């Protein structure tokens, strides 16, 4: 058993130096690099001291799983293999994590849905697995284009859920995500989501940390549950679950267990604020109009704000970085001056708007939209149009092709 602190400064088999994470992320020199989001995932994992990656390459949504296979060939990952399906992959991730490994995987859209049973199991078993979700359409007829509906299903699994806007977010948050989710008082899986295709397939300038620095390894001895032990919970729970015993004690224990998972989500708040510099980013929140968004809808909102400024309309912006833990107080504070709150989203149901309506006082201020879905893009003009319509300003209809 190696103590995490004593290993700082030593080298791994690839010659990378185990580095204090705060120094690596905040003080080490950064190199601007022009990469796709999938390539950025690979570069983050190169530096993540990952023990096991299990893949079900769901190309063309993301090449990340295949690219990380290259890292295995280069010797940066302890083990790498392909599962039979997304469900198998997530189950195999659980096995590796139960055994004390730092585990990484990726999924998207229908794959997320197929594997869904595993996610509350991961959280219940306190497995700090990191899963990249490159969101895409989930319903028939299938789409490989971005659509964030699957995030709505992840919100109540007990996993931490973060939503990256850019490839830079992605790079930093993959590395920071391990540190937050492996804290012993948290120790939960992290679903790190992005809007697939927009982030995964487009190139952007990303500032990378030095490739010869890597995270300290995972220390399973700090886990709040024992490593793999077939006679003890949580493993025993799965072959001998409480629910199979019909008595008050069994139900009370299971209830207390569930509460503990959500208590751990709450505990992640402090660590997430520390590492992500807050659960939200805000700009101009003294304005009457505020756009609240997550993922690439933030970028579109930012452009809409610039366009509105040209017309003399001032808007604020709240970028929601963490969805679990939910930034309840931060959103209340950031929207306290707003007369109108707009929530642009890349999905048909408007799950983020529903969360915000349930959070802020005077929820009639929340305009759930504009929405696009099924892989449509969201031109900033439609956000501008939505805002101007609500304000009673003259606007022009944006007809789609074929209208």
């Amino acid at each position, binding site marked *: 058993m190696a103590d995490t602190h004593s290993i700082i400064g030593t080298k791994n088999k690839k010659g990378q130096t185990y580095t204090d994470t705060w120094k690596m992320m905040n003080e080490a020199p950064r190199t601007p690099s022009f990469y796709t989001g999938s390539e950025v995932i690979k570069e983050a994992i190169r530096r993540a001291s990952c023990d096991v990656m299990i893949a079900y390459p769901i190309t063309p949504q993301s090449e990340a799983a295949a690219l990380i296979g290259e890292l295995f060939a280069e010797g940066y990952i302890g083990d790498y293999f392909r599962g039979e399906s997304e469900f198998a992959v997530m189950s195999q991730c659980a096995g590796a994590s139960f055994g004390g490994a730092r585990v990484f995987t990726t999924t998207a859209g229908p794959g997320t849905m197929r594997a869904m049973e595993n996610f509350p199991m991961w959280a219940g078993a306190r497995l700090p697995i990191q899963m990249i979700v490159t969101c895409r359409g989930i319903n028939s007829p299938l789409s490989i284009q971005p659509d964030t509906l699957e995030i709505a299903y992840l919100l109540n699994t007990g996993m931490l859920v973060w939503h990256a806007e850019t490839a830079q977010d992605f790079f930093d948050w993959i590395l920071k995500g391990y540190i937050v989710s492996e804290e012993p*008082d948290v*120790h939960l899986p992290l679903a790190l989501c992005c809007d697939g295709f927009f982030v995964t397939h487009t190139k952007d300038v990303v500032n990378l940390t030095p490739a010869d620095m890597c995270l300290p390894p995972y220390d399973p001895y700090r*886990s*709040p549950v*024992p490593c793999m032990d077939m006679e003890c919970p949580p493993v*025993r729970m799965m072959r001998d679950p409480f629910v199979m015993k019909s008595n008050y*004690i069994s139900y009370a224990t299971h209830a207390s267990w569930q509460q503990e998972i959500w*208590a751990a989500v709450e*505990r992640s708040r402090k660590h997430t604020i520390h590492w992500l510099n807050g659960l939200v980013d805000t700009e101009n929140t003294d304005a009457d109009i505020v756009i609240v968004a997550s993922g690439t809808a933030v970028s579109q909102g930012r452009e809409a704000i610039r366009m509105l400024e040209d017309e003399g309309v001032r808007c604020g912006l709240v970028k929601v970085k963490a969805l679990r833990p939910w930034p309840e107080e931060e959103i209340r504070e950031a929207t306290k001056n707003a007369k109108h709150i707009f929530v642009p989203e890349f999905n048909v149901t408007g799950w983020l708007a529903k969360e915000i309506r349930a959070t802020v006082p005077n929820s009639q201020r929340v305009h759930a939209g504009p929405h696009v879905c099924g892989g449509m893009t969201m031109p900033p003009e439609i956000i501008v149009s939505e805002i101007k319509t609500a304000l009673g300003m003259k606007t022009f209809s944006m007809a789609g092709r074929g209208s």
Partner: protein
Amino acid sequence: MSDYRVLPGPEHFLPPAAASMGIRLPNPGEAHINGVITSEDKAYEEAARQFLMAKVPTIFPGPLVLWAWNEKAAKKATAVRHLFNTLKECVQSGQKPMLIPMPDYRPKYPKINPEVEINPNHPNLTIWHNKIDCCMFIGVHCHQANLSLKIIRGGTSCYTIAMCAQAGHEDAMLSFRDASVEKLMKLADTIKRLKGTVQPRLTSAKNGVSS
């Protein structure tokens, strides 16, 4: 800061997790009492006072100190034994200190023997049976400790103390973090120092259950 306070129960049919009520864990060098962040020094005094007041002050050592899986664990186990011996020396007649292990986390069916062990799935049974009114968890994996602490708060009036090796426990009424041999010895020293200054509640003990 949350208005919620982590107090001896019985609190509720299903009490909430203290974290979900806004109670936050202490930072290194701190502790908490009833969910309020405080200095470690204050926590030593209060933990010692609670032990010396209790009719049945009890230590629950868990697997992380019961098994000599590394040198540190073995040393910690020796310190736990020292703490228990100190407690025995410092209590008055009528008080009955106990040392009851939590050897593992297996659900024990059909029935646990509450005289010899405590189990995280139904810790209240051991509390009730032995009329324990103050207890300290040490060496229990954090998830299992929180499970136990919440169930104890829900159904008993026992005062709970956590000597946690990691980040601490909001579900205990008093929690240390980063537990070490030195901290155990300091708690033992504090108990010794307060010996005779604290009146045990021998007549008013609620025997660990709701009155």
